[in-house]
């Protein structure tokens, strides 16, 4: 009985959170450094997984200051991602 519950629970989590498609945007100096304004990632399992894949693709970004926004909101903690979230890498602002 317990086993079944756990299994159902896992299936549920799998449907919600595993193998997500996430759009990642780069701005300012980071668009220049990565050579792109954005990249679409498939099969993302978590925010940590996404960050690793981004840093594998664009290792130079770790040398820059940036904050990360999820769906236009700057995050401070590691967020739970949902399918079709938009992630943005934001260098220090310079408006005005």
């Amino acid at each position, binding site marked *: 009985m317990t086993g079944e519950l756990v299994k159902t629970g896992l299936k549920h989590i799998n449907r919600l959170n595993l193998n997500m498609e996430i759009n990642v945007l780069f*701005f300012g*100096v980071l668009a220049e450094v990565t050579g792109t304004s954005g990249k679409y990632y498939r099969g993302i399992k978590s925010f940590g997984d996404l960050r690793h894949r981004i840093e594998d693709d664009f290792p130079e970004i770790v040398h820059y200051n940036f904050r990360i926004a999820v769906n236009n909101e700057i995050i401070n903690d590691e967020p739970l991602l949902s399918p079709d979230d938009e992630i943005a890498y934001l*260098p220090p*602002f*310079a*408006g*005005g």
Partner: protein
Amino acid sequence: MHLINGPVHISKISEIIAKASDNKESGAHSLFLGQVRRDHIEGKYVSAIEYSAYEEMVIMEANKINKSILSEFSNVKSIEILHSKGLVKTGEISLLVMISAGHRQDAINACSKAVELIKEKLPIWKKEIFEDNSEQWQEND
């Protein structure tokens, strides 16, 4: 809040002043214009700034700024914010903030606060372009 391509032209500034004057409840308009400065850095002069923006987030953050100004200064009647994207040459205007209020002190203080929030909160980036065509990313203090 509007992001506009290139500089804020004088005709646009006049239009905004005329529009603000339609509100007869206002007794004061405070207008701030940000201009691209011909900075001198390491022997080179800036000739232009190229602005880029995360447009969707700029609009969302600008709405938050509006709400925060309206709640802090109850006397404010209207807020207009224009910011450039793309290329703006030295001497041209890249930011306009105009706040109308019942009385001068609220208009002046709210305008000053709005400018600070714009620089702090809006996801906008600028690259200085020098007279020799070299470039450098800049950030706000």
